């Protein structure tokens, strides 16, 4: 009896020693932090997720895909290079089967093809009515909580920016559950038609890395350096679109143009209202994932012949370096943010959105609603794969605990960031000194100022700002003039193609001269919020 106990105890010891030895070896090979992260992900996913036995049904649509196992094996064996190869598949949605072409996608980001949850693209001839788009991506979400991108796009769409359709779905491939994935419309020439905004195909350009060729990743081209760096997508007529894109690129990178002349050209080729919403969305979402080289789309709106940007891959809280006021993600943004009126309009749009998202709690409510639907499936998903360390190759299985922590973390970060932005936009402490018919204003806050005084036909008041006439408009019985803020470039040598640049607001020192005198009704407000300055 005691002999059996001894041999059993020895066995347990051997297993324990073996585990410790393996841990030590891995820790030595990978480094302790990395090894701990991988081990923690592995242990928690085994101990927590694998014990869950539920099979939730509702909440998320199910995509059941059938492909030839042999063809799929063939693709799997040559990832990521097999990504360009399409195979036939049948996609069942809502009990109806749709033929589609299936291919893997995402050669650049390992989380798309490492692990067991691989991102792919479906191309339909006759798409399901649930997502009536010719091409959809079904991707492994890039964050543990699976909602970062979804929520980033939701914010952009809510701010009026055109966004691809994005929803979370359950996926089965040949009867094997692949878990929760993100279904993501691939913008094509049907982008406006699918939204009921055009009866025909439209010209659409993709601004991204070049395509993978000969087992080599695509070229990284500066999009605004040459119109040829944009990839024309679809079968719409490209004649006018090419000419207009060429003109827009020239307006961005042409030399010797004044800010006003360049802005005039850009405004004739780009829908500025939507573009300013787009810039506001980038600021609110706090993403730097869209840059000089990739993650951009432009649609030529046949209604007025101007380009419209599509917000793409807007990862939430993918920080813009240096907490910038005016982040310059690419050369076009550089040119647009040089124009003070456009900066003001962008700020107003961002402020309006922030009030709803943060103050009214809409972001939190939306997050909770989506999370409530996703969480049971996330728990049942035993195929959750993502980068568990910051190294690209460390794509491993993770647990629901990671997802919960990640969700809480991102909400906390967003809340802190947006509180900061609101303060930054609304804070407007201005030192005002009266000197005869002059007002001397000074502030280090970033707010542009609006000056207003009652319109009085009998006394015409002219205003000079630092000696130059200040243009005012009459509206609602008041003359209104905006004192825009000067901005300075973040780098010593301004270059429209630099990454992670920003414009910084310079302190204001201004003298306003009123001729013949300062009107009694003069008011100074924050030009964004219209609140009186402090």
């Amino acid at each position, binding site marked *: 009896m005691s002999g059996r106990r001894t041999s059993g105890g020895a066995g347990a010891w051997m297993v324990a020693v073996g585990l410790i030895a393996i841990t030590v070896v891995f820790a030595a090979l990978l480094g302790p932090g990395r090894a701990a992260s991988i081990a923690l992900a592995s242990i928690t996913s085994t101990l927590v997720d694998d014990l869950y036995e539920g099979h939730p049904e*509702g909440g998320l649509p199910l995509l059941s895909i059938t492909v030839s196992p042999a063809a799929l094996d063939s693709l799997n064996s040559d990832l990521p290079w097999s990504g360009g190869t399409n195979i036939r598949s049948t996609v069942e949605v809502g009990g109806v089967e749709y033929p589609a072409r299936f291919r893997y996608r995402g050669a650049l980001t390992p989380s798309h093809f490492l692990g067991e949850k691989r991102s792919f693209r479906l191309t339909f001839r006759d798409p399901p009515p649930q997502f009536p788009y010719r091409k959809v991506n079904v991707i492994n979400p890039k964050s543990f909580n699976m909602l970062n991108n979804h929520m980033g796009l939701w914010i952009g769409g809510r701010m009026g920016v055109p966004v691809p359709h994005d929803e979370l779905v359950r996926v089965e491939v040949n009867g094997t559950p692949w878990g929760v994935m993100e279904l993501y419309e691939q913008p094509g020439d049907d982008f406006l038609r699918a939204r009921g905004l055009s009866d025909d195909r439209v010209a659409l350009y993709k601004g991204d890395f070049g395509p993978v060729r000969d087992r080599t990743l695509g070229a990284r081209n500066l999009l605004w350096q040459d119109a040829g760096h944009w990839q024309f997508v679809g079968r719409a007529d490209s004649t006018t679109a090419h000419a207009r894109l060429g003109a827009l690129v020239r307006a961005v990178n042409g030399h010797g143009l004044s800010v006003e002349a360049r802005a005039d050209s850009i405004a004739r080729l780009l829908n500025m209202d939507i573009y300013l919403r787009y810039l506001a969305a980038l600021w609110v979402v706090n993403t730097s994932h869209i840059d000089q080289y990739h993650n951009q789309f432009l649609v030529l709106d046949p209604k007025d012949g101007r380009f419209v940007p599509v917000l793409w891959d807007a990862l939430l809280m993918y920080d813009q370096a240096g907490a910038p006021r005016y982040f310059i993600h690419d050369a076009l943004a550089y040119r647009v943010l040089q124009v003070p*009126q456009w900066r003001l309009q962008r700020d107003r749009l961002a402020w309006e959105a922030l009030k709803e998202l943060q103050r009214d709690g809409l972001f939190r409510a939306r997050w909770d609603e989506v999370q409530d639907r996703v969480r049971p499936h996330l728990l049942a998903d035993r195929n959750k794969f993502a980068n568990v360390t910051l190294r690209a190759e460390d794509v491993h299985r993770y647990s629901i605990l990671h997802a919960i922590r990640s969700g809480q973390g991102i909400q906390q970060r967003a809340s802190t960031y947006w509180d900061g932005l609101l303060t930054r936009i609304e804070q407007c402490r201005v030192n005002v000194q009266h000197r005869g018919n002059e007002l001397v204003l000074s502030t280090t806050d970033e707010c542009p100022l609006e000056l207003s005084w009652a319109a009085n036909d009998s006394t015409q008041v002219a205003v000079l700002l630092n000696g130059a006439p200040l243009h005012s408009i009459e509206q*609602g019985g008041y003359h209104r003039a905006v004192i825009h803020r000067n901005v300075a470039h973040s780098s010593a040598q301004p270059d429209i193609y630099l990454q992670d640049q920003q414009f910084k607001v310079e302190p204001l020192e201004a003298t306003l001269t009123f001729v013949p005198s300062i009107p009694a009704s003069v008011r100074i407000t924050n030009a964004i919020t219209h609140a009186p300055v402090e």
Partner: protein
Amino acid sequence: MRRSSEQRPIGLRAWAVSLVLVMGGAWAVFHFVDPHRLAGRWPFGVDRTEVDAYAAVAVLPFAEKDSVRVPVLYLGPTRRSGSCWPADRGRGRDTRWMETNGFGDSVDVRPLRSEADGLHVRLRPGSELRGQRSFTLRPATDELLRARFVQLLATELEVLAPELSLIRVISCGKDLGIHVKEEVPDGHFLARHGVSGATAIELVFDPRLGHDLVPRVKGDSLANERLRALWSSSGRHGDAVGVGAWSHWSLLRMLASPDDPWGGEHPSAFMATEQQLIPVFRAPRPDLRGPARTMRSGPVTALVGTEPFVRSFRAAQDRLTTKRGELRERLLLVATTWVPMLHTGEAVHVHMARAEALIDELLRSLQDRELVGRLGLPVEPWPGYALLASEHAPLLSGSEVQEADALAELRRTTKLVVEGDSVVFPRGKYRINGALRFPQGHRVILLPGARIELGADAQLQVRGPLEVRGTKLNPVFVRPAEKGMPHQGLDVVGGAGDAAHISGLQMSGGRADRALVRMQGMAQVVVQGSVLEGASGGTLLHVLGGEVELRGGMMQGGAVQLTQTKALLKDVLLRGAARGRGAGGVVVEGGLVRIEGGATMGQEGAGVRCSSAAKVLLLGAVIDGCAIGLEVRDGATVHVDDVRFRKNDLVFSVSSAGSVRGSSRVVLYRNSFQDNGRDREVDADSSVNEVGTLMEAVRSGERFIP
């Protein structure tokens, strides 16, 4: 006493007694307890499915066999693959043989895309089944009874609702059970219900469904255009959307699906000509996403919570409540027909009691005054809605970014009226600074006596039809607000079918580098009796494309430029500037132009300049005191008849230099020349031919130009 540890077997008799006791008890409960109690809530978490199971065991063996006749629908295999429903789940249509109630024919079928295990059946053209062209078949469920009851209420409120009926489906000999047959609310359905000329569309209010920003009708560009116009002006089209009909529809949705009134897809009829949206009530379908917590912005949801909507909603409740007794009888009649069919082989009296409870619940809801309040959910804008609302777009970067509420401000401070999709300027004075862009598709009407003062660089931007209704006695004035501060005039961009009618307009003070009035993309432009003045040359009126008619009036100090138009200029006076000569008279770039009567005088450039292969007729006009009387370039052809050329430095300048459109040509008929400097300059590739007389048909106007 110790209990024996020996196990005592439970004998057969004990089993039999206990079985009889339990069965007897259950039989007694299900026979003597009021079915309404049985149908109600049970304690200890007993579910209604368990009750149904007990009832089936306890009651059915002793129940009288009701013979309920359910119509039968037979489906054959598909012609293409030979497979039987529901084995074939492909999305495509296929042909099957269908037989029911004496009807037998080949029909087109496909799986229902919005719901598993459903089938969409379409009959051949000319073929009808109870007046229907297409219908769906779905497995019948308990929830259906509520939908059937509400459908009955829909007929009371005169809301269109497709017919629901129960039918047994037998596919290739296999009984698939009771299905619900529901008519598809398509064009045939609408026509059958007297809504002719309407198109059936699907609306989505649930933000989680990634469907159209604007509903789209395949192959009907007019309907799509109108739908876009309606959606882009959400909240301003209560009349078009119909507060009454949609509030009634909302009441029905609240009754049919109280937890999720906005979920799923909703059929509707769109009348493009009247631009009217009519609701159709359809039985709710299950949505695995659960109830929607927000609703999409749009013309229908914009009505919710408004005072007329609430009033109409409650009036509909009152209307039904007054008929409560009668409605209860009718609903009970439906229940006695449907319940036995839905629950064949089950304890019908329990289900009947449940149906009665449901009827009472519905009728109680009609008296709930707070029901309308539960309809309103937070509104979620469509993703990318700015694609629709282009009126917010700043056009001119150099000026202050346009304030979104400029129009609203003008409306508040002046007599400006916005009626539906028309912006009307009645008689009065309007001061406009900056660029004022009217909403896309809105008609702008300037009534007699309207005086518009444009600030420096201000511009009126019309993006739809334009009507200027000035008269000789009461013109419409557009002037600069301050002397010496030129504005940027009027910029009109129209869509296909839009027209601009201008009469009695007196306009001046534009910038030299911009056209005073610029019109693009209009199908028709008519300008009558108007006076346009340019102080410093430039273009007074520039029309690009479409048909143009200029009658009478005067253009002073600038040119009329016609680019690729079919234009008639009749009795128009074009003068140089008030002091000295102006820049040019008529500039024709391509197209067909007939200039009849009128005069072109005192121009620094050409009186009439034609290029880009334009075909022009000059008839009965006067060209007087211009540097060049008629200048023809780049393959244009000009016929000149009965024209008086007087005191011009040069009468004809005809050149084909650099032309890519062939030779330039002037054809002269009978004209008069007086006190001109030189007669003509014609290069080697061009010609000036003198021929006989102009065709009478052309002269009389029967033919536009030779």
